[in-house]
């Protein structure tokens, strides 16, 4: 089961490309010209995206280095005591919606400190693997098409985030027993 998923993941892109090229050849499409035209449109899109990416990177950078993140974790300390939750996991949970690369770094640090198969390592794996970079995805995807009114999206995204976080906290320690 697992190996077949890994195989699908490995083969999907080369096969998709092959299919596209064969189909375009049989339909006599001028592949090169169409590709360049599409790539040009794509470049224009990225140019529009850059300010959004810049805005997020700066704020997340400041949020981490200024001590604001540690301060938030400190504020939530009573909650941590109540639920017996390690502060590192809360840091990870707060970081993941903002930045995938930053939370990946934190997860890797947790692995070296506690081991990937410990209760903490398992829970961190689940938080890292399950939650999305909500804030980043919303600002970049909506920014690409200049939508300012995101309606209920951030709310729903954060609810998903919290649900996933709680489930990870419950299931993570169970996995360490295996």
């Amino acid at each position, binding site marked *: 089961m697992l190996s077949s*998923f890994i195989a*699908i*993941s490995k083969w*999907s*892109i080369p096969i998709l490309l092959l299919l*596209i090229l064969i*189909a*375009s050849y049989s*339909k006599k*499409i001028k592949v090169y010209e*169409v*590709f360049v035209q*599409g790539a040009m449109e794509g470049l224009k*899109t*990225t140019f529009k995206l*850059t300010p959004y*990416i*810049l805005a*997020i*990177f*700066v704020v*997340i*950078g*400041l*949020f981490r280095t*200024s001590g*604001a993140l540690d*301060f938030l974790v400190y504020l939530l300390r009573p909650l941590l005591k109540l639920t017996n939750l390690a502060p590192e996991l809360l840091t990870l949970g707060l970081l993941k919606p903002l930045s*995938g690369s930053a939370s*990946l770094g934190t*997860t890797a640090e947790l*692995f070296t400190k506690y*081991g*990937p*198969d410990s209760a903490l390592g398992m829970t961190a794996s*689940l938080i890292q*693997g399950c*939650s*999305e970079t*909500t*804030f980043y*995805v*919303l*600002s970049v995807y909506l920014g*690409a*098409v*200049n*939508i*300012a*009114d*995101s309606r*209920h*999206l951030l709310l*729903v*995204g954060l609810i*998903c985030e919290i*649900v*996933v976080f709680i*489930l990870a906290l419950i299931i993570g320690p169970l*996995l360490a027993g295996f």
Partner: protein
Amino acid sequence: MINAVWLFLFLLSILAAIATGKITVITETIFTSTSSAIEFSIGLAGAIAFWSGILKVAEQAGITETIAKSFQPIFTLLFPKLTNNKTALGLISMTFAANLLGLGNVATPLGIKTMEELQKINPHKNRASNEICTFLVLTLGGLCILPTTLIAIRAKSGSANPTIILGPILLITFVGTAIGLLINYLIIKLRFWHQRKE
């Protein structure tokens, strides 16, 4: 709302830097994070340009339509208005599949292309349409069969069983996505955010 979060994070960070006496950190961080943002954008530009080119070829060759048809049973439920829009349905399907397989580098370019396609049929260009909301909630749910980077890191950190997390991750992301889609559906149906501006 994103506005408010951004402002909050920015203000909190500056206040925290002042409170902890790490004032020099602000300018240093601004310098390093702006340059890494531009580096990241340049990397992303290549991927987006390449996949935009390939997708344009795929669309003209009719591949997008074929993919749309194979995913139609699932997505006509979620996107009733797009039943006849094969390009949009095809792009949504491909983005979903890329996320499912943990192909993050491909998923972002596809997702952005999908947003452009959905924006074409958005009646209010400044506001997320129902289809855009559903598509983004589907993405934010993060349904995933194969979190490739995570498995790699677990293996590198010496895990005895790096892939043990796959089942739980599929389960948790499935629950997350289902709850997200359900709330999204209810909000759209009950028109909470819907006619606010009219």
